[in-house]
C-alpha cells in the first residue's frame, strides 16, 4: 500500500475522501492490508474518543464491499444529494451511509464516533430479517434497521423515545437518563 492509498484511508476517517480515491482503495489488490491499517487507525480513533463499543455490532466476516460499489455507482440517496448541493460544496461529500458500509467492509469499528446525517442509520450485521429457522435456543435473529422502510423505522424510533423517557428524568438515573433521551431525540444512531 503506497502513501496515496494510506492518505485516502486517513481522509475517509475524517469524512473527507473523494470518490475516485475510494474507488482506487477498493481496487487495491491486498485488501487484507487495507483492513489491517484501518483497524489500527480505528483503534487509535476509539482510544481518543473513548469508544470501542461498536465492534460487536458488525460481524468481522461481513462482506458488503459489493454494497459500497453499488453506492458508488448508483450515487447518493436523494436527500443527501440535495443537502450537499444546498451546502454548495465543491467537494464530493462521502455519504455517511457509505462510510459506515465501508467500515463494515473492513470489518471493524463500524465508524464509531461519526455523526451520521440525521435519519436512522443503525448498523447491524447484514443478516436476514426473517426468523432463522435453524436458530438454536440461544441465538437471536438480528434485524437490520437499514433494511426497514420509513414507517417501520419511525415506529421503532417512537418506541426508543418512549423507553428513554420512562428511564430519564423519572427513574432517577441522573445525567445518564437525560443523555439517553437526548440521544434518541436527536437521532442519527
Amino acid at each position: 500500500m503506497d502513501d496515496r492509498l494510506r492518505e485516502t484511508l486517513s481522509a475517509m476517517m475524517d469524512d473527507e475522501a473523494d470518490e475516485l480515491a475510494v474507488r482506487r482503495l477498493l481496487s487495491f489488490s491486498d485488501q487484507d492490508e487495507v483492513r489491517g491499517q484501518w483497524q489500527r487507525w480505528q483503534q487509535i480513533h476509539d482510544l481518543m474518543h473513548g469508544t470501542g463499543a461498536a465492534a460487536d455490532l458488525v460481524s468481522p466476516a461481513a462482506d458488503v464491499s459489493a454494497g459500497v460499489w453499488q453506492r458508488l455507482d448508483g450515487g447518493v440517496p436523494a436527500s443527501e444529494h440535495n443537502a450537499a448541493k444546498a451546502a454548495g460544496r465543491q467537494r464530493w461529500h462521502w455519504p455517511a451511509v457509505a462510510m459506515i458500509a465501508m467500515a463494515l467492509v473492513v470489518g471493524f469499528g463500524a465508524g464509531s464516533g461519526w455523526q451520521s446525517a440525521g435519519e436512522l442509520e443503525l448498523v447491524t450485521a447484514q443478516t436476514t430479517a426473517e426468523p432463522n429457522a435453524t436458530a438454536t435456543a440461544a441465538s437471536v435473529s438480528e434485524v437490520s434497521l437499514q433494511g426497514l422502510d420509513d414507517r417501520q423505522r419511525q415506529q421503532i424510533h417512537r418506541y426508543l423515545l418512549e423507553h428513554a423517557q420512562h428511564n430519564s428524568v423519572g427513574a432517577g438515573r441522573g445525567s445518564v437518563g437525560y443523555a439517553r433521551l437526548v440521544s434518541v431525540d436527536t437521532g442519527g444512531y
Partner: protein
Amino acid sequence: MNGQAGTVWLRFLLALAVMVLWMPAAAQATEAQPQTANSAEAVKWLQRLGPAMNMTSYRGVFVYGRGQQVHSMQVAHRYNGSMVEERLVIQDGGSGEIVRRGMEVVCVLPAQDTVTLDAIVPSGPLADSFSDQLLPATRWYQAQMLGEGRVAGYAVVKIALNANDPYRYSYRLWLEKDTGLLVKSQTRNADDQILEHFQFTSLDITDDIADSELQIATADKNQTSTISLEPGSSATELVTRLQGWSLDWLPAGFEPAATPRSDKRQVIAFSDGLAAFSVFVEDLASLDMPTGASRIGATTVYLRPVQSDGRQVLISVVGEVPPVTARKVAESVRFNSAAVDSANVDSATASLVEHQDASR
C-alpha cells in the same frame, strides 16, 4: 527417661499435625476475608451514590456514547439543602436544553414534536430513587472494588457490578472519592465489550453555582414543554392497566417501574435497579414488521409480530438488556382470549404478580 522423650516427641508430632491441618484453612480464611470486605466496601460506595447524585453541587461537561453515536452535554447542578436545580445543555447536533427545578422539568429538545414528555411518570420520589434501586440491585450483580484512579481531574474509586446471570449487562462505575458522585460509567456485555459509556471530561465540584447558570436560555415559551415529577400512579395501578395480555416470564429481579399515560397503547416498564426495559403491545394492522432484534449500543429492540384473535399485534421489547432477554420476554407475552372486562384484568394482574414471584 526414654518414655518421657517419647511423649515430648509425640506432642511435637501432634502439634505439627495440627499446624499442617490448620494452616490451609487459615490461609483460605485470610484469602476469603478481603474478598467479602472488598464487596462490602463496594456496596458502601453504592449506598453513597444515590444521595451524592442529588446533593452534590457541580458543573461540567460529559460525553455519552452508544453505538455509533457520541454526544456531549454541559451540566450545572445545585442543591440548596432542600431542592435540586439543574440545567443540561446539548453541546452538539441540534440545540436543546433541559432545566429542572425541584420536581418540575422543562425540556427544549431539537425534535420537540416527537417528544411527548407528559408520558413520563416517575417510579418514585427522585431524591432517593437511585439509592433505593441500587441496593436491591446488589442481589443480581456482584459488586467489587477495582481500585482507584482519576477522572476529569478528580480522584475516583472504580467499582464493578458484574451480572450474576446472562439476562442483564454488567457495569463499571467510577465514583468521585470525596462526594461519591458518579463521574464515569460503562455498560458491558458478557464478552466485556463496552456497549454504552458516560464520562465527565471536565468537572468542577463546587457550591458556587450562580442562578444564571440554571436559567433556561430559550425565550420562546411555545417551544418548551413542562412536566411534573410528582409521583402519579403507583406500580400497582400500572399492573392493572394490562389489558388482555400478561407476561409468562420475567428475568429475576425486574419489577414494574413506570407507567406511561397512553390509552391507545399497552406499555409496561421494568427495572432491576440498574437496567430497564419497556414492553409495548400494540394493534398494528397496517404495518408489517420483521421478527428479531436490533441493537444500538446497550439498547436492544426486539420485535415480534403475532396474530391474536385475527388481529395483527406487534410486541416490542425495548431496553438496556441483552437480545436474549428481550426475546424471552417478548415470547412470553400471552393473550387472554376473551374480550377485556374487569375479571380479565384481574386475572392478568394475578398472573403477572404470580410469575414475578416464581422467577425469584
